[in-house]
Every structure is written in C-alpha cells, then in structure tokens.
C-alpha cells in the first residue's frame, strides 16, 4: 500500500441493460391485438363471481375459476376517474415529461380499474367521478401505450 495514494471509496460504475420480450399470455395476446388492430379494450368475465376484470386474466384470483377466450368481453371505452396524481418529477422511465397526470379509471362494464394518463385537463378541475374517454395512439405497437391517454368527455 502506498500511503501517499488515495485508495478512497471506489465505486464500480455500471448499468444493467436487457432487451426483454415478455409473453403477454393467452388473454393478454388477445387484448393487445384487439387494442392495436381494432382500438377495442377487453376484460375477462368470471361467471361465478359475476365480475369483469381488467386486465384480462386466465384465472379468477377470487374463486380460482379458469377463464378462457370465451370469457373475454368488450369494456369501456368510456370510464370514470377514481383517483389521480399530478406527477412533478422526471424519470427516464416516464413516457412523457412532467408535469403529467396519472389516473385510476374504471371503464364502463368493468369491476376493476386501469391506471393510465389523463391529458387535456385543467389540473385544478381534476376530480373523482370525472367522465373520461380513451384517445388511441396513431402508431400502435401492441402495448399499453396504444391507448395514448384518457381525456375528459366534456370540455373542462
């Protein structure tokens, strides 16, 4: 050891980068293809529980019934805002620059809700109960951002 030299607190500077391709599943494949090609949103109905779930899933988490493609049903496109936040910070994982609004939106005909962006709204007028409609992306790639955002149904 050289006493003149600063050995300090050395940090190993790294990034973890991985290109990943996650299978969307039986129900998810149908959901994303319908969304991409037809701009339709589907959920999955559990007949036993009489609930319509979004995202569509192949097992009911409540009664463990197996759900299949016959259980898929169109929901929305209109929905109701349940809660929201105005995000003021920036992260590289954000698909848009802050400030922006996340909302939890219950689509008509569904029993569970969807998190998505709410655009085109005066921040001061955001309120639970606000009626919203989806605006689909022009260029759709088969992911959740094929819904570009939701916007108020009435002019706010």
């Amino acid at each position, binding site marked *: 050891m050289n006493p003149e030299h600063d050995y300090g607190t050395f940090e190993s500077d790294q990034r973890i980068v991985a290109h990943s391709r996650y299978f969307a599943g039986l129900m998810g494949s149908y959901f994303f293809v319908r969304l991409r090609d037809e701009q339709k949103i589907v959920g999955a109905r559990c007949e036993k529980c009489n609930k319509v779930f979004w995202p569509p899933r192949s097992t009911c988490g409540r009664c463990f019934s197996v759900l299949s493609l016959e259980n898929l049903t169109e929901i929305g496109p209109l929905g109701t805002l349940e809660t929201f936040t*105005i995000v*003021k910070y920036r*992260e590289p*994982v954000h698909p848009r620059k802050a400030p922006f609004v996340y909302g*939890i939106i219950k689509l008509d005909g569904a029993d569970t809700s969807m*998190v998505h962006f709410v655009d085109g709204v005066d921040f001061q007028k955001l309120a639970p109960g606000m009626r919203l409609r989806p605006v689909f992306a022009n260029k759709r790639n088969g992911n959740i951002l094929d819904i570009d955002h939701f916007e108020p149904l009435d002019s706010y």
Partner: protein
Amino acid sequence: MSERVAIVGVAQTVFSPKRPDVNYAELAYEAISLVLESTGLSVEADIDNAVSCSHDIWDGQTISNIGITDVIGGHLRNEEKLAMDGSTAVYYATIGILSGEFDCTLALAHTKMSQTNRNIVNNTAFDPIYSRLLGLDFTSAAALQAQRFMSRYNISEKQIAEVVIKNLANATRNPWVHNKGFYTLDQALDSPVISSPIRKMDIAPDSDGAVAIVMASEKKALKVTDKPVWIKGVGACYDAHYLGDRDLSECYALRSAAEQAYRMAEIDHPRDEIDLVELGDEFSYQELLWLEGLGICGSGEAADLTCRGFTSFDGALPVNPSGGLLAGVPTNVAGLNRVAEAALQIRGEAGDRQVGDVRIAVAQGHSGFCGQHQCVIVLGRE
C-alpha cells in the same frame, strides 16, 4: 417443538443517506458482529439458521444473499433470503423455531439505497405487460393511494403534515437516523409537491443501513438473556398486484395480517391493549392508513386521532417514537427496524426515545407498492 420464540439480541447500524465506505456485506457485518457481541453468541456454536431481507437490484446481483453468505454464517450452512420487507424475516424465523427445525436464528435486513435510482428500481416492481411502460414507481403509486384515501375520508394536507411534524420531532431523540428536526405546519406544507398530494417531506428519504436480530426458542432464549422479548403473534397477507384491483383507501391485507397476529397474541382490543406501535410510514399518509388497518381506530379516523395527540411521543398510544421511516430508514430494513425498535422499548433500552413502560408492542412492515404485502408482529415482555 418450541412453545415460544423470543428476540434475544438486537443491533442496528447508523442509517445515513450514503455509506460510501462499506459494501453491502460489510454493512451487514456491522450489524451482525454487534448482535453477536452483545449476546455472546457465535455463528458456529449457536446460530443454526439465518434469514435475510434485501433487494436484488439495489444489491446489484440476483439472489443477492450470495454476497453475504460469509458474513451471515451461510457458508455450507442454511440461509434463506426474502426479497421482501425485513418484518418477514421475523415472521419466517418464528415459524422455523416454532416448528422445532431450528433453535436459534439470525434475522438480517440490509439495503444501500444510495447505490442506484430508487424510482427506476421500483418501476421494475410493476408487471411488465400492463403497468411498467406507464413509468409508475412507488411514489406515484402512493400518490394515487393518498389522493383516494384523503378524498374518501375528507382528510386534509394539514392533517397528513401532522404525521411528518410528529415523526421528525420524535427522530431528534433517535441517534441512529439522519432526517430529523422540529418543523412547523407551514414548513411541512411549503415542502415542494413531488406527486400530488405527496410532498418531499412526506417521503422516507433514501438511506443506507442494516439491522440484525437474534431469535431463539424459549429454552435457548432463557440461557442467553434475562430480558427476552417474546413473539406473541405474527400475521402476513397479500393484496392484489394491480392498483385497479384494489380499493386503495382500504388495506384489507393489513387487516387480515393484524387479525392473525392478534388472535395468536390473544389481543381483543388492540387500542387498549397495545402500548406502542412502530409502523412503516414510507409515506406520511401511510401512518394513518396503517393505524386503521391495525384496528387502532375505524376507517378514516386516524387523522383526528393523530391531530389530538393520541399517537404522539407522550400520547396514549405512541406511534413511531423512533421517528419511523420518515426519519431515514432504508427500504427492506424498514420492518426489521420496526421490530428492533419495539423490542428495545419493551426491554427499556430505547434511550432518549423510551416512551415509558412498554409491555405489548406492535411492529408492522409492508412490501411492494401501496402496501400490497403486509406483515404484523406482536411483541411482549411476558
């Protein structure tokens, strides 16, 4: 099979925003060596199981307990890791000892939050198919929950700020934490909004640190210490993953975990029978929501209870006299620190933050966003 399980030793590192001078194994060893020294136990002769809690991405490798096998006594021995809050180490250590399989377990939690970006790490906690691309993280998810909770029960930002003021003032008594001070309501409400309604001061700050606890069967415990802290009850429960599957103003998973723990501890009236609560206030509003889930009061009532001073340091039921997570306790370490603080209070060894005579204490920890997984530990002197 052991009838009872006790905590026989507790040790913590100082929690600071960044510990550049230690890697995560060296950090873990600080707490481990302290707890072994204070109990006089040795890894070779006494410890027959180890359970650790940490987070792979923060540690920088998958199955990241590989990086601590040497310091936890896991080399050619039994050691398990949970990628969950530290409270679950106590839960599984208890089960292991009650089963008779193990006699003496080292429970550890360690995290260096300074090593990477919290929001990007937490973004990977969201499912990759439907949620992750939206860019969500624990803070924006918590903000959706806070807004829903406050709007449903008409809770004001001032009432939430009372939690911040209380916990940061309590933290001035705690030498282990780094975020502390006496703040006014105006100062708390002037803190910049990060994701409405959550402000900077509402968020537990990034911290580095570790906690180690030794737990033992009754027979072993009585040989090690004359101040055992008994595990009276444990409970754990998961809620749904998707935010839209849950009513975020409720915490059914915590209610269920608390019911399990109280049933085991024979607690019928938690508000009257519990002397102290240490809970996971990763965000300030959570202290109110978790108090409701713990059955200390009805839904929507915790804000008034807090503003009346019921949960303050010298109140009827002190909550987070340590300063809680807002004071600066790392994620994952959070719940084990809650258990450690509760145990120190029962032993009368909490120093300046000792609230008086504590016979029954409750520690709560949670994992995932918006408290998806909940764990409750009831500790007692008898």
